[in-house]
């Protein structure tokens, strides 16, 4: 659970799992996910457990998300940009389904 300090202007609108959220300039996509109050940014490929960003400095890869249609991006290293679409990444990507 995170909130914006009242004196910080939120000027950039992005979409987290389709829902609009306003974040300040300089915020990362991972910060937007946390501000949106999302329950998870990804679900693990092994057990499907929910995860949110853990390190915010590019080391842990728990922030992997689908950003503007591109999967497996480190959301903590991607600056939020107007209109950006950040979607939860669910489990392993399936190459082929019979």
């Amino acid at each position, binding site marked *: *659970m*995170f*909130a*914006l*300090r009242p*004196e*910080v202007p939120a000027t950039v609108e992005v979409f987290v799992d389709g829902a609009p959220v306003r*974040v*300040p*300039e*300089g*915020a*990362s996509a991972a*910060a937007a996910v*946390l*501000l949106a109050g999302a*329950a*998870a940014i990804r679900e*693990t490929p*092994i*057990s499907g*457990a*929910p*995860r*949110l*960003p*853990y*390190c*915010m*400095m*590019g*080391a*842990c*890869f*728990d922030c*992997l998300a689908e950003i503007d249609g591109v999967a*497996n991006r480190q959301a*903590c*290293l991607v*600056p939020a940009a107007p209109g950006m679409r950040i979607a939860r990444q669910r489990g392993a990507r399936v190459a082929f389904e019979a």
Partner: protein
Amino acid sequence: MTIDLAIIGAGPAGMAAAIEAADLGLSVAVIDENPAPGGQVFRGVERAGGDPALGADYAEGLALARAFRAAPIAWHPATTLWHLDPEEGYLSLDGAPDLSARRVLLATGAQERPVPILGWTLPGVMTAGAAQILLKTAGVVPAGRTVLAGQGPLLPLLAAQYRRAGAPPALILETTPRGRRRAALAALAAGGLWAGRHLLWKGLGLLAETRAIPRRRGVTGLRAEGRNRVERVVWEGGSAACDTLLLHEGVIPATHIPMALGLEMSWDAAQRCWRPVTDAYGASSHPNVAVAGDGAGIGGWEAAVAAGHLAALDAAQRLGRLSAEERDRRARPWLALRRRALALRPFLDALYAPAPASIPDATIACRCEEVTAGQVRAAARLGATGPNQMKAYLRCGMGPCQGRLCGPTVAALIAEARGTTEAAVGLYRPRAPYKPITVGTLARL
């Protein structure tokens, strides 16, 4: 075109090195994964450098970032180094065109030491450093009941910053064992008290500022509990409701690239981490590669600034722009600054020495592949003698983080199970690409 010096990382060491090297007439390029200079300690400093909640120390990064911006260098933000050939000086980059450089300076800094406790993968649990980055880059603070747990200078600093920002934590759980204070004070009395007095003074100020926040000392058996996110933090003899749990057990050098390059490393027993072997100027075991800042051993930002200047002076000497005598003469003030900045280290290292692993079997050691401590112990007893064999047994270290988060834990567990030391067990040997890259990036080769 081949440039003189490529610097990886625009934190205090990288920025200082770039400024000095450009001043000495070297052609310099700096790359960093982040969109702005600052590194982790000065993350977002151009945006938030004047924020009173973040404090005067953070504001000092502003002058450094401004001088860096003004220096005549090639700056490549949002760029990742995914391969380095040190023989040829060839850097493969994602986000900018590849580079050729006569000398390479790794200023890749530190990462937080992993804190493998039960429940540390639950949403709502993150590192204190991560939470501080949210505050610096976006003015984001935790809402609800926040618990800070662990040890190290970052915890009182973050508690004070949250308090100034109107979001004080509900509870601080200190894991420093009882009795450690006395040993640390003995280390302080043995030297460093006078030279390190300004740092000590700042530390005492932070403790005074956060005195009103409830705190438990000597906490053991820490774990996070909850169904789909953290709801409670539990320790030996207590528990508390919790919406956000922020963990911290100090920082360790980011060894990924030095290890992948095969640089000579040494085990730092005081800080319980690996560091590349360097001389006073940051030169590594490879003749074309230097390492400066926390990536060469944890010393903090002032020591990193000094190390950046020293590495730049050495680069100029090696590239024939400066005589050895001139390099040594110009190095003197930076060596003195570094000595002052490191004066408190023996005290901090003794006070905040990480406790040896007593990790319950059910704890996740490798977050990516969801491998538990018990699995690692069992495989170690079966015959996996080191982290690299452990990959074949359990896939730990083979997920997207490439072992950055589980490396120290897996090594400590193997050492424990086999009755040997972390120094003897060693670390994962990472390979390029240093970060996952797309097929598209590869196809551009």
